[in-house]
């Protein structure tokens, strides 16, 4: 049945990937800027073990906050993240079926793939792929990872990242995400507008830069210590926290171009070490 509101859309997509055989996970408990950073993607896509998952990920990008006044941009937006490893030959067709499961009649619309290669310097990662446009609106980012944490992937996965807020605008014919009906009688703005306002104020005005700077170093140190003790999953959490601290410093305007580059390099080094540890452990276990 075609979803009638936001939460039905979320449920329909999740049901589709569950039927396909994916492991349905929950969002991560630490701030991430994208579903890719969730260990369910970043770590599981390293190594040779096959993996299929789908999960929602509220993605937090402090720079993009607009206090809830902009119809298009938010410092927190929802991604639907699917990983198919290895990428099946017919994976594009499967993706199209997922759109059909949302009630989208693809023959009626103009769907196209627009070349877009993805790169995440903090994770030492890159891949090749597309934006998926539906009648001119970008609704999905599609990537075949080639490298993560500085390592060439052993088994190439397909990452399908749905921009769920954009998708909801498309499905429910709204010009602003804020107006989308979340559940009967409740719109997206009712749920998140105040969130956007307060967190934008936090990101741009109130976040304490000296504390964040100190915390970054503490996270960095703890990550290193944990890696020494072969606790790579808790170590990775520290990397994510460090990355978020960096994003906040950036949003506060506290970083020069040189400093920015230096922070990115520090996060990348940590991500690399975690990736290395993960690949090493997987090999030992095998």
């Amino acid at each position, binding site marked *: 049945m075609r979803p009638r509101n936001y939460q039905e859309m979320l449920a329909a997509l999740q049901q589709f990937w569950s039927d396909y055989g994916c492991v349905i996970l929950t969002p991560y408990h630490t701030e991430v800027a994208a579903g890719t950073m969730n260990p369910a993607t970043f770590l599981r896509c390293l190594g040779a073990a096959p993996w299929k998952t789908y999960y929602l990920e509220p993605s937090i990008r402090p720079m993009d906050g*607009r206090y809830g*006044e*902009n*119809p*298009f*941009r938010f410092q927190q937006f929802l991604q639907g993240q699917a990983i198919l490893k*290895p*990428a*099946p*030959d017919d994976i594009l067709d499967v993706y*199209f079926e997922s759109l059909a499961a949302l009630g989208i009649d*693809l*023959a*009626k*619309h*103009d*769907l*196209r*793939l*627009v070349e877009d*290669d993805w790169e995440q310097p903090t994770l030492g990662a890159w*891949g*090749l792929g597309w934006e998926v446009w*539906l*009648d*001119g*609106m970008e609704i999905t980012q599609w990537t*075949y990872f*080639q490298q993560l944490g500085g390592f060439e992937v052993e*088994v*190439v996965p397909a990452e399908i990242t749905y921009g769920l807020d954009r998708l909801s*605008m*498309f499905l429910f*014919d709204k*010009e*602003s995400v804020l107006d989308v009906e979340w559940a009967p009688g409740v719109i997206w703005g009712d749920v998140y507008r105040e969130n956007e306002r307060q967190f934008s104020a936090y990101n741009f005005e109130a976040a304490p830069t000296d504390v964040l700077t100190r915390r970054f170093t503490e996270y960095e140190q703890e990550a290193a210590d944990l890696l020494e003790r072969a606790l790579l999953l808790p170590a990775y959490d520290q990397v994510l926290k460090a990355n978020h601290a960096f994003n906040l410093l950036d949003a506060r*305007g506290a970083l*020069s*171009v*040189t400093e920015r*580059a230096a922070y990115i390099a520090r996060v990348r080094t940590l991500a690399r070490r975690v990736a290395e540890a993960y690949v090493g452990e997987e090999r030992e276990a095998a």
Partner: protein
Amino acid sequence: MQLPPLARAHLGAEPTDLYLGPRRIAFFVPDLPARTPDEWVKGPPEALREKAAAGFARKHGVSADELTVRDGFLGVEVPGKDLRSVLPDALAALVRGLTFAKAMRWPGVDFRFPRPVRWLLAKLDGETVGVSLAGVPSGGVSYGRRFDDGAIEIPSAQAYVDALREHGVDPDRATRMMHISAGLDALGAWSDPGHVLDEVVYLVESPRVQAGEFHEKYLQLPNRVVVTTMQSHQRYFPLAGNRFAFVANGGDPDVVRAGNERVLRGRLEDAAFTFERDVSVGIDELAGRLGSITFFADAGSYGDKTERVARLVDRLGGGDASREAARLAKADQASELVREFPELEGHIGAEYARLAGYPEAVCAGIEEQYLPESAHGPLPQTETGRILAAADRIDTLNVAFELGHQPTGSRDPFGLRRAAIGLCRLATEGGLRLPLSLLGEDVRDFVEERYENLLDVPVEYVRAARRARADDLGRVAEIARTLATLDRANLERIHTVFTRAQNITAKADGIGEALRTELLVEEAEREVATTLDEVSAALEGAEAVEAQVHAADRLAEPLERFFQDVLVMADDRDIRANRLRLLRDVRDTIEASLGDLSQIPL
């Protein structure tokens, strides 16, 4: 492109047609030879027949007696094979031979390509040819529109394009371009300042041009903002008023139009929102925030840059409008709109200045500071614009060079070549007086060197002119041009004066430190000395290079007489030293005004 040589190497012929689209790469090769050429495969040298002949022969399935000799080597005749038998591997090798800047792997297939290859099609006339490429499915079908058609049987190589067109897909870029252009023309006046058409033609295989509308209220935004919003991400084409054109690739036209209109509305709303926020901050406040925006690494902030540019504007003779424009020129770097759309820099700053009530001369300066945008693009129209454009470039060049970012042969990440060319054009075409003292030493050389390509004269004239002690950049060009257009006889005369004086003094020892008039014993050398004094004064007083040439010319006859009557290498050491000094002075005096004439090959 890569295909012709690859086709020649693997197939023995070059393609006549190339088809590129978002879902396929195809090519058509007519007149393939039915057999590959007979080959004589070279083996070991004849001298090693005893040792090596048997092994080589065995490898090729013949006996040692069947080997023939050519040029001292043993070899075997290998007859050509039927084309059909070699094509599967030859085509695979051809595909593998393609190289791309970025290529990827994908599961189950052992080679790299920009995106996963999902099918291969090869036809030899009406026959399907399998391609043995790493497990990629190969056959005689192609695929058209994703959601309308399934597999399309391709009856023959010759029928490929027609078969696809019958199913609504055009693999030929040129035809698609014609179709799209015609469709756009039919909608009325359209524009493409962002040059997105070249990309759009590769985004679609079933192009259908449509028009849409947006709310008129967005026309209150500066035109550039509307156009950039439309083109930058969405690749739409502005039409008159509140209409726009887009190229669809399928779907129901009404549904697709509605969708695209909605997307554009969202983006225009976003742009308007951002614009309003910038305007409410105001250009003066934006200018005040430049202290925290880095210009580039180690080069300080845009605030620092603004101060330096303001000082340069003063030294370039800029008036109040130029100074004000300099103060505000980079303010839009602190704006949200420029952060979102960097290509709006300058333009939106001018707009914000207008809205804040600054005089048009100031706004025009801000708008024009990034001109010329290319080697042949238009220059700033206003004097303020020119001065600011020059000051900005001078600063960027000086700072970049000081930090060690000189461009190399292949790398110029900061666009310094373009900046230098802009400076040269501002000096010559723009008539701007650009004191060379404003440029760092390395920068000066780098900038002057641009004239070698920019001016329509042989490079030697530029090289000669660069050695003159020109005060301003435009002078270098003027000297080069004047020398290059001199009548031959005139040029030869002063060239001779210069080179004769240079050649004798170049290798000599013991040149006097300063000319001593009491040692000028001969009439001819006194005349040269006197003429040189007059010429020197005339050169300094002359505005135009041409006048300087006339002045230098006056040395020709006296110098001719000098070489006839006077022995430079006199026995008396002091007199010799003095005569060398005289000639050196002649040479140096000419060079100071007209450059190193010996660079010009005559």
